């Protein structure tokens, strides 16, 4: 099949999305299913067919999601209802929208590496290990292998304990 000339192609828009919490392993296919499920659950199959959402690329904590021009608002609302990626709790934070992927790449900031200076903390009488540290924000998990759920704290929370 011959490729359509540019004037006959669909106009697309691309959303730059950050996946929280930082460091979550992103499987593009799983994310696509999660986004598709959110879109069709919220707007129905008819509108999902108009939006034509697709996960274009995942780089670090950032993901580029494509949609048809004029449906960015619907896609953005649907993205705010994505709460899980398989069994991992996530949140998708929309950073920007653009007509080209290239301009979105400029806005992808590599997150600062975790500061491993104080890897162990005490909070609420329990020992925690830091999994991510960015400025005042510290994500920790309980020491040991039984409880691996993340706690979202700040450096000040540690100092008070």
């Amino acid at each position: 099949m011959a490729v359509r000339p540019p004037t006959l192609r669909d106009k697309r828009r691309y959303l730059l999305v950050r996946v929280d919490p930082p460091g979550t392993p992103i499987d593009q296919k799983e994310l696509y299913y999660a986004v598709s499920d959110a879109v069709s659950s919220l707007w129905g199959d008819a509108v999902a067919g108009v939006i034509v959402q697709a996960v274009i690329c995942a780089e670090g904590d950032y993901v580029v999601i494509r949609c048809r021009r004029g449906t960015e608002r619907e896609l953005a609302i649907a993205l705010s209802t994505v709460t899980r990626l398989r069994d991992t709790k996530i949140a998708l934070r929309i950073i920007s929208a653009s007509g080209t992927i290239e301009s979105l790449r400029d806005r992808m900031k590599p997150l600062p590496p975790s500061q491993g200076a104080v890897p162990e903390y005490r909070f609420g009488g329990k020992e925690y290990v830091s999994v991510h540290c960015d400025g005042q924000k510290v994500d920790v998990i309980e020491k040991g292998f039984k409880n691996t759920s993340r706690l979202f704290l700040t450096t000040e929370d540690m100092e008070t304990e």
Partner: protein
Amino acid sequence: MKITDAAVCPYPNGDSSVRRFALEAAALGFDSLVAFDTPSATYGDVEVRRGLFIQNAGMKDVIAQVKRVNDPLTVVSVKAGDAGFNRGVVGYRGVHILRGIHTAEKNAFDHVTAKMAADNRVAVDIDLSCLISARGIARQKAVQRYRDLLVLEQRFEFPLTLSTYARSVLDLRAVREISGLCTILGMDLPDVEKALAGVGAVTALPEPAVKVV
């Protein structure tokens, strides 16, 4: 006007500390939060107000718990019940917010309660967590109930508040995302702004009817 998330549940009810909630809320565009079972404080630019949530209680318990509140910054909210209970709660001075309308009976919040809520400046809460995390019939029912509530709101103009009921910072949503979610309920931007400022409106001291010059 302070943009407020009217309900978050910090540690130990959730997995995020109240300071972390405040940090994230500031980044997402909020000025204040109502946090359950947490003392009032200000972290950075974000004011955190203590939230008292009275649920599964009779009218006597509500009165007793409201009388015990001694912090003027505390935001008192009560979970909705049947029509008689809701009228009693809305008519009682000291209650600021009526929550959980979408889980109450269909006619638990009628035009009489709506009029009383407007007269007594008691807000009705819109729980966004059921729009965010629920799917299928649960979300459809919530949308239906809130659309019905908004019909009464436009007629009687009682205050509204918006809550994410976030137990984690991952459950918080940006102000723009909240505006988007509220369009599903038929709210436009001025309605959303008014609802986000609802906590400030119901907790502010009422203007005196007579002004001494």
